[in-house]
């Protein structure tokens, strides 16, 4: 092993998903900040700081963790590390001390907002590292399909809520 090789207990993953919401960015942004309203895959509880502000930390519990027979602890943390209104929202995700779901995880989850013709595009990127002894023994390649599928579903929830509840650009103008 060289002085730069990662241990075989490390898994690196990255994915990107996007959604286009037929509503102006101002309303979408406000709805996005109310994470609990559209993230249905996890229970979310604010544990530090003022919710929705930089520095605040939420405890995020994957609802299906028990059903999927994941090792404890069944929660991780998300900290808002940076945001720029209607443009950018960056979370750092990390596990409970000692691990979450059987791994030590750290990730940056970045959501970029752009606006075009009264519509909002959100590109959500995850850069993730997982560390666990079990990773070294995995025979099947690890993938992030569950996480990616969950996020696609969550963004679809956001789209549905926004398009149902927020006025469209045309309605705003009239």
């Amino acid at each position, binding site marked *: 092993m060289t002085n*730069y090789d990662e241990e075989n207990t490390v898994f690196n993953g990255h994915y990107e998903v996007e959604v286009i919401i037929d509503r102006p960015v101002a309303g979408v942004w406000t709805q996005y900040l109310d994470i609990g309203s559209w993230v249905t895959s996890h229970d979310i509880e604010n544990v530090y700081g003022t919710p929705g502000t930089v520095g605040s930390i939420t405890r995020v519990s994957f609802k299906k963790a028990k059903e999927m027979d994941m090792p404890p602890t069944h929660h991780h943390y998300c900290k808002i590390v940076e945001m720029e209104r209607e443009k950018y929202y960056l979370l750092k995700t990390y596990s409970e001390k000692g691990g979450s779901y059987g791994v030590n995880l750290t990730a940056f989850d970045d959501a970029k907002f752009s606006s075009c013709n009264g519509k909002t595009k959100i590109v959500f990127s995850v850069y993730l590292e997982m560390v666990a002894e079990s990773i070294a023994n995995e025979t099947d390649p690890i993938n992030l399909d569950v996480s990616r599928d969950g996020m696609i579903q969550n963004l679809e929830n956001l789209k549905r809520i926004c398009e149902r509840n927020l006025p469209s650009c045309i309605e705003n103008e009239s």
Partner: protein
Amino acid sequence: MTYEAPNRPRSAITFVALLVLASCQAACISPRIDAEVGNNAQPQFVTFDQLLHIHFTLEYPIAQVWPYVIGIESWIKANPIESIAGVRGETGEIIKISVLTNDNKKHEYFAEVIQVLPRQKLVMKYLPVKSTSGVIEGLYGYDVYELEEINGITQVSFQTYQEYGTSKMSGEEFRAIMELGMEASEKRWLEEYIPTLRALLRTDLN
């Protein structure tokens, strides 16, 4: 609000332990959260998130700019950067960054190219710090370069997401040092790196 002891089954926590945990919560919510928020009256691991977003445009097509994204050492010159393993510009390439500190010690950091979408995106992951001779004991993060060409002009977005960690100083001291470093880094991008890149692109045309 209650918190479980990290990674321990609830049944294993004794009543006394619960009392201790409860009394501890006001000052230290969870050891992992403390690392994040810098509650470190006692020496312990603290983290600092270094986040940098640099967006700029280059009056050149993407085909001309891309080689500089996979060869950053030609214009990012504050610290020596070398490609030491793997294939240049491909997933798996290993890059070494040598940093000379004020006390003349050399620290080496490594990064691996983990995603390449030719002429669109390159992602590098910083590899774990193995030597702990310096203040930095933990480094986790990514550099992301994204390119988009509009009418022959390339929009470049550079973002870095890095978590640094140490147990060698207080959260406040660490933050102060790292914030200075972050300001210096942003300044370098604007005053050194981007002008150097522009000059190289101009030279290419000649």
